[in-house]
């Protein structure tokens, strides 16, 4: 068969049995190596400089204007308190951390379960979604004393408070994720004869993972806030309790020290979520880095 001038280079006529079965493509080059994530010196240095500058200014201002320690203690004073009473702070940080972890776990599990139930049973969504939204108009603060009445002065009410804080963002994130599955994917699954169960387990759930992780990140940050609010409503331990009692005695440096202890709790939880996300959704990193 002589070369056919009519056919564009890529096309062969369907009777072209004699056409060489040329390899489809010159072996496509593997994608360019991904750019290393930019944990450059600058990414760390800039925030560190800002923090250092703020602390220096703060220290300077306190000394220059001779501010009394019960109005604004100097950073060095806070550091001294932290160091001298480290065992006390460590103990109370542990309490708040435990409350945050338990509360986050409870709120996350309940949030995911409710989101799935509402997704699978639309009458449930119709019945509960307005209540869920309305409940967010109740200042979470107002609930805390009630929880102390119901769950006691100790661990239980703080866990409940952290769980209540986490529950709403978690439910909304997961429900949203389940709903936003691309309709074309659902159609593809249907043409493949997938059952409803398969569509849910193999399509909607994995497709909702990124949304679920957004919810988890918010939860990681809010859980300790909830725990501290719970402690403010009445507690015998924890960083919130420490803050209140120190504040009442005008030991303001201790209040600041407690705040300093609170930060790593949220950051640690957030870090754990980010690690989990990398492990469970490895493809996400790639899509983000892809050109």
């Amino acid at each position, binding site marked *: 068969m002589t070369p056919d001038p009519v056919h564009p280079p890529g096309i062969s006529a369907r009777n072209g049995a004699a056409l060489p079965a040329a390899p489809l493509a010159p072996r496509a080059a593997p994608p360019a190596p991904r750019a290393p994530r930019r944990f450059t010196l600058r990414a760390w240095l800039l925030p560190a400089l800002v923090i250092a500058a703020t602390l220096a200014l703060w220290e300077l201002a306190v000394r220059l204007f001779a501010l009394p320690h019960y109005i604004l203690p100097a950073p060095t004073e806070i550091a001294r308190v932290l160091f001298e009473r480290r065992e006390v702070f460590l103990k109370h940080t542990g309490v708040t951390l435990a409350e945050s972890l338990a509360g986050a776990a409870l709120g996350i599990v309940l949030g995911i379960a409710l989101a799935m139930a509402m997704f699978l049973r639309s009458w449930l969504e119709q019945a509960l979604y307005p209540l869920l939204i309305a409940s967010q108009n109740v200042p979470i603060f107002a609930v805390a004393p009630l929880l102390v009445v119901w769950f006691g002065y100790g661990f239980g009410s703080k866990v409940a408070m952290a769980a209540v804080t986490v529950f709403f963002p978690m439910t909304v994130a997961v429900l949203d994720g389940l709903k936003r599955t691309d309709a074309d994917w659902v159609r593809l699954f*249907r043409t*493949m004869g997938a059952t409803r169960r398969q569509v849910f387990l193999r399509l909607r759930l994995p497709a909702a993972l990124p949304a679920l992780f957004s919810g988890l990140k918010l939860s990681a940050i809010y859980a300790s806030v909830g725990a501290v609010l719970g402690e403010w409503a009445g507690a015998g331990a924890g960083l919130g309790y420490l803050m209140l009692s120190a504040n009442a005695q005008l030991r303001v440096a201790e209040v600041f020290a407690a705040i300093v202890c609170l930060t790593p709790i949220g950051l640690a939880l957030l870090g754990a979520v980010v690690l989990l996300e990398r492990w469970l959704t490895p493809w996400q990193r790639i899509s983000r880095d892809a050109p």
Partner: protein
Amino acid sequence: MSRPAAVAVEGVSKRFVAGGVPLAALERLDLHIAPGEFVSLLGPSGAGKSTVLNLVAGLESPDEGRVSVAGVDVGRSGAAPPIAYMQQKDLLLPWRTVWDNVLLGPELRSGAERERLSGRARALLAEFGLEGFAAAWPAELSGGMRQRAALIRTLLCEQPVLLLDEPFGALDAITRGRLQRHLARLWRELNKTVLLVTHDVDEALLLSTRVLLLGGPPGRVEEDIALPPGGVSAAELGPLRARVLRRLDALTPATP
């Protein structure tokens, strides 16, 4: 026609409501596609080409008339019709590797099916130049590679009828040409029935055994062009293309 049609559309009407305005997408449409045919649907936007595919795929149901695939009414039995469906969007699942994506169809049937077709999957990946990318994520592939993976997924559904909705529409000319050549060879070798929706006149004329020109809305077959059994020759292509383009131009509503 003694054999049952691979795809039969009989007196089918389909109406949609678009922006509050009812729109007849198809009106008493008839189509008969014999087993082993490669039929292309050409026509302006709004002629109901994709609606036809969706009806055959069982994704929509007709308001009137009946649609059957291999003699079985679509939607009547409740089971999905024996078709494999491919779109312009590759629809690869980002959380699955290429390997797990191409084997999605068999996997949804059973684990044993997935096992049975893994050898075939390996062979197809090699044939399409993707053997080094079985473990890659879709996000790591180029557009052409993704579309090849989608075509492999479609083939691994092992259905007798392939419904292709502008499968290569988003690709560059060279990649498109290569995939067209591949599709032509696969169609010959695998003895499939193909229903292709396309805007590319050359694609339709060079790949098909029959080209249907659709007009509308409501969609109707304006012309049924049977192509020579041996394929369109060099001498025939030019005049055919000119004729089809003239007809398409006449069928396309004038823009105000």
